């Protein structure tokens, strides 16, 4: 049976486990019909021209893993940022793991979507925010149709969350192929501040497809720093759909570190609804083998006096492929917009490919918008310079690549995340430089 049919026919079973008389279920049902109509995206869609899910959709996914799978902390510790204290919301095969989690309701809510959706005390927030900015496209609709579990984070006014929050989704490979669809909602009220780290990690080589939707609402004067660490096994694919809505004076940054996986597709969307907003989108991609990473970004400048800063660096080895599609829309009312976009790529191997497409739609006349896209090889003169000083070619290349990626790393505000990314890059490049840049 085709995956779409399998999913459609399993919807009745899903409905057995949720409250079908709720408002939420109306939203789900509508999304379900939408997916039923649209099906999975194909390369015929402009947005999926360079990313084919065909090979991934062939797997016979188990849609609702029915077993409770436990894992030992010691076995997965390395996937956490464990050298600092954090809140943790952890899922195993889509099910909440209270054992690995560290949630809170003390002055804020860092907990589960399933309880937020079912308990009356969260009703107002859910009504105001759930599915309000998520698009009605194929895969977001599919996620919405089955939305039930994920992280729910609510930060009230003036609360500065004292430690970062980690959202980690493990898959155990207890089934030959697993489909998970986490649904996260993050609401940050006025003057509040939160830092979040998100990771999806498969623990075996069995196939995994994660179709994730995260909605982030940043109210006036709020600050949200979001870090996505993508360094999964080569049979794990992910479609990450993230939607951010910002109000006046808010600053939201999303850093995406894509170091591995099978197919990685990031749909990152920012909507600016207020003035003096700053949106920061940064990414480092380092892949090899036949891996594929696709960044589709959208920044929608709707009101005047706002900024956006995009900086994506990519290093592609072997037969890996990359896509960067950065869309910036500046509405007629959005005068004095400053929108910057940079996308620099290095192809280490001559079999690697990158498809880069900046897309600017500007309807206002008093704006500063820039975009720069480069695709190149490592600078031979720089490499010779380093070798002349005694640094072997392999280390020299790594040093150059470090230096190349560094502009993205320096804006990471959690030192432990920065040093973790540094280590991941060093491991990826197979060197030990003996210092952190």
């Amino acid at each position, binding site marked *: 049976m085709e995956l779409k049919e399998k999913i459609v026919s399993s919807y009745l079973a899903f409905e057995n486990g949720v409250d079908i008389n709720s408002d939420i279920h109306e939203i789900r049902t509508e999304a379900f019909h939408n997916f039923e109509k649209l099906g999975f995206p194909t390369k015929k869609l402009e947005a999926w021209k360079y990313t084919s899910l065909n090979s991934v959709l062939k797997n016979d996914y188990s849609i609702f893993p029915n077993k409770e799978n436990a894992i030992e902390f010691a076995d997965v510790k390395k996937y956490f940022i464990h050298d600092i204290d954090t809140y943790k919301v952890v899922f195993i095969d889509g099910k909440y793991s209270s054992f690995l989690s560290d949630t809170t309701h003390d002055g804020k809510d860092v907990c589960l979507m399933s309880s937020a959706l079912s308990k009356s005390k969260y009703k107002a927030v859910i009504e105001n925010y759930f599915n309000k900015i998520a698009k009605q496209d194929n895969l977001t609709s599919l996620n919405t149709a089955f939305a039930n579990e994920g992280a729910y984070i609510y930060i009230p006014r003036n609360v500065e969350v004292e430690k970062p929050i980690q959202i980690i989704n493990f898959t155990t490979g207890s089934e030959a192929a697993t489909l998970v669809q986490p649904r996260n909602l993050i609401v940050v009220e006025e003057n509040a501040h939160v830092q979040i780290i998100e990771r999806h990690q498969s623990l075996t080589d069995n196939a995994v497809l994660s179709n994730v939707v995260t909605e982030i609402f940043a109210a006036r004067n709020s600050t949200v720093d979001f870090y996505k660490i993508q360094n999964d096994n080569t049979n794990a694919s992910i479609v990450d759909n993230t939607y951010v809505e910002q109000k006046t004076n808010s600053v939201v940054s999303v850093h995406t570190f894509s170091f591995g996986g099978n197919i990685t597709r990031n749909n990152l969307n920012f909507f600016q609804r207020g003035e003096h907003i700053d949106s920061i989108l940064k990414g480092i991609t380092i892949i090899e083998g036949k891996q594929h990473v696709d960044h589709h970004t959208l920044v929608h400048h709707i009101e005047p006096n706002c900024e956006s800063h995009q900086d994506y660096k990519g290093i592609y080895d072997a037969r890996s492929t990359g896509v960067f599609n950065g869309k910036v829309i500046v509405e007629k009312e959005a005068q004095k917009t400053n929108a910057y976009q940079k996308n620099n790529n290095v192809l280490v191997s001559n079999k690697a490919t990158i498809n880069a497409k900046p897309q600017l739609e500007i309807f206002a006349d008093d704006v500063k918008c820039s975009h720069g896209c480069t695709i190149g090889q490592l600078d031979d003169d720089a490499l010779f*310079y*380093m070798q002349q000083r*005694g640094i*072997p070619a392999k280390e020299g290349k790594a*040093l150059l690549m470090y*230096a190349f990626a560094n502009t993205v790393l320096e804006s990471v505000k959690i030192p432990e995340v920065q040093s973790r990314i540094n280590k991941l890059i060093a491991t990826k490049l197979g060197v030990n430089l003996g210092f952190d840049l």
Partner: protein
Amino acid sequence: MLKINNLHASIDNKSILKGLNLEVKAGEVHAIMGPNGAGKSTLANIIAGKDEYEVTQGDIELNNEDISELAPEERAHNGVFLSFQYPVEIPGVSVTNFIKTAINETRKAKGLEDMPAKEMLKMIREKSELLEIDRKFLSRSLNEGFSGGEKKRNEIFQMAMLEPKLAILDETDSGLDIDALRIVANGVNKLKSKDNAVIVITHYQRLLDHIVPDFVHVLYDGKIVKSGDASLALELEAKGYDWIKQELV
């Protein structure tokens, strides 16, 4: 120390060095002068091992060992240092981290442990003082946004840190004002010893007022066509290169 025998080299099938001979002994300073396009920078790059040049004939010996097949880093580990005419900018790598990596990679190649941090710091302090380099400068990205003079001083600073056996200074005086020239020359002179050697490649006599050569060679059309002592440089300064070209006819 360095012995170059009948060296022929080309780039893209264009012949640049056409039978060059040169012998440099420990403790000596040699100046190589010559008109533009004579092959001076090519010679420097070939000794350092840049692979875009093809050596078609002849060999390069360093301490009686043929180095012409070695990778650039291996030559560096054997004590070859090239002060670049145009040092490359490497954004994102600080001067300090770069030199630390260079020193420790060289030590690793010799089977030594990393230099202890304390010793490294002491050495960095001493050598940066010698070159009158501000400490703040050391944490900046390598050569990025440096003035011409800063780049050249930084080259000699690295030379001081790496303590090479054979230092080749390629047009180190170009882009230097008179103060920077004095600082750079002073640095080179302090580093000179009976165990190492220096090759100064230059267009002009002025650097040689500060770094006094034992031998001056004129490189023209891929060959050394005239050699002499320091007075040859003065003669070249006064008369230009045309008389040498005429002598050859």
